[in-house]
């Protein structure tokens, strides 16, 4: 019985079914937690790059939001781009004030850069460099700009700066009220 052809197929299908049931259960349990995390993570990251903003409404689904302060008047916009880094896409979130200067830059948590190297992009010193820069000033020292790259992770640094410039070009039209 153990080695008959029929049992060969049946055992495979049986294992797949059990696996499928188990995985779907695990997924349905962990999915809300993961979504929950990323939902409030999104809100946190948006307000982090646009200080003083109380609530956001979506300009473009998933990529651009406009931020209002507690009093309800617009103080700027936030956009998200995902340039391709060393290990895969990097989510970059940029806040712009109404004059088009960067108020803050956040880097998504789910990037797959080389552990311990590209991941340094998330460190504050690198992100804070972007504060106060306008579109033309966003460039690495190496590309005759003012920002210095993460040592030994030029690919990641360049990916972030390119992402920011691309974001400026695509979304700064939202700034004009």
């Amino acid at each position, binding site marked *: 019985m153990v080695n008959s052809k029929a049992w*060969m*197929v049946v*055992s*495979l299908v049986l*294992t*797949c*079914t059990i696996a*499928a*049931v188990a995985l*779907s259960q695990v997924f349905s349990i962990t999915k809300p937690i993961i979504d929950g995390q990323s939902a409030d993570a999104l809100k946190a990251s948006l307000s982090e790059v646009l200080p003083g903003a109380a609530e956001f409404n979506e300009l473009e689904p998933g990529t651009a939001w406009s931020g209002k302060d507690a009093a309800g008047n617009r103080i700027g916009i936030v956009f998200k781009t995902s340039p391709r880094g060393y290990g895969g896409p990097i989510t970059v979130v940029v806040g712009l004030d109404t004059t088009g200067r960067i108020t803050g830059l956040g880097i998504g948590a789910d990037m797959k850069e080389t552990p311990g190297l590209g991941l340094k992009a998330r460190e504050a010193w690198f992100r804070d460099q972007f504060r106060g820069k306008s579109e033309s000033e966003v460039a690495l020292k190496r590309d005759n700009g003012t920002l210095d790259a993460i040592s030994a992770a030029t690919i990641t640094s360049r990916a972030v700066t390119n992402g920011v410039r691309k974001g400026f070009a695509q979304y700064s039209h939202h700034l004009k009220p």
Partner: protein
Amino acid sequence: MDWTLILTSVAGLGGLGLIIGIVLAIASVKLAVKVDEREAAVRAVLPGANCGACGFPGCDGYAAAVASGSAALNKCSVGGANVARSIGDIMGQEAGAVEPVVAVLVCRGGKDVAPARFQYKGASDCRHAALLLGGPKACVYGCVGLGHCAKVCPFGAITMGRNGLPVIDERKCTGCGNCIRGCPKGTLLLVPRSKLVILACVSHDKGRAVKDVCRVGCTACNLCVKVCPAQALAMVGNLPVMDFTKCIDCGICIHKCPTKSFIDRAPGRPKAVINPRCTGCQACVKACPFKAIEGEPNKQHKVLADKCIGCGECRKVCPADAIDMVGALGHARKGTEG
């Protein structure tokens, strides 16, 4: 319990499992390789060293050839007689007797007696060294001594000696021939295990040319050819070539050779002893090539033990059958059984 998710994932993964299961099931039937069960049985008997001594690409190759009947049953020298017999049983035929062979080093030019002519710092392998002007050794014919044979021996029978010559452990050696094929200088020879006296030199030079490069090299002085009682040696290319069928392993050439270029694989040799039946006819005195017998005519003669090498020539000519070979039993020579 999100039933739709469970059902879709079961359908997805389960369905895929079904498809793959069916494909593999059909494939295992259609693509089944028809393996002759005799081939599997023969393969199981073979030692599996894949050494190629049988002339086939490894044991699988030989098993396939035997099963298809296109190979003799006793080609596996590594397995020897019992493997041949079990293959015979499997194939239902009588396997011929297998003459066990063993690898022997036919060069005694170690570092102590055969100096190098330049320092070789390249890859420590004979085949590489031999490419460079024939190797670092003054004698270009001799064993380079960098251990290629030791490396290729699948049975670990060869280790490198102190003087840079390989030492072959005859108990482990199965005669597979890997070392013979690997050696760039051809200083290893496959000889039947029963063969005891072998020339240990491969130099085609003569006289002084050999003396300059190696103290134990054969200088082609032709003495061994003259003294050999069975005329088993013939000088070809400055080397005495031995006819194994004629040679009676008496050992005379070993002791007569001025440069000790022969080796004797017998651990010990018997000695001649004259018993009282001796009539003192002195036939043996003339026959002994080493003047090892003395005594007055018509009196009981005596053998000088230190001079006698146990070649057995005296025993052959003694009319009164008064001489026996004593000691080192089990190494009696053909025609000189003690």
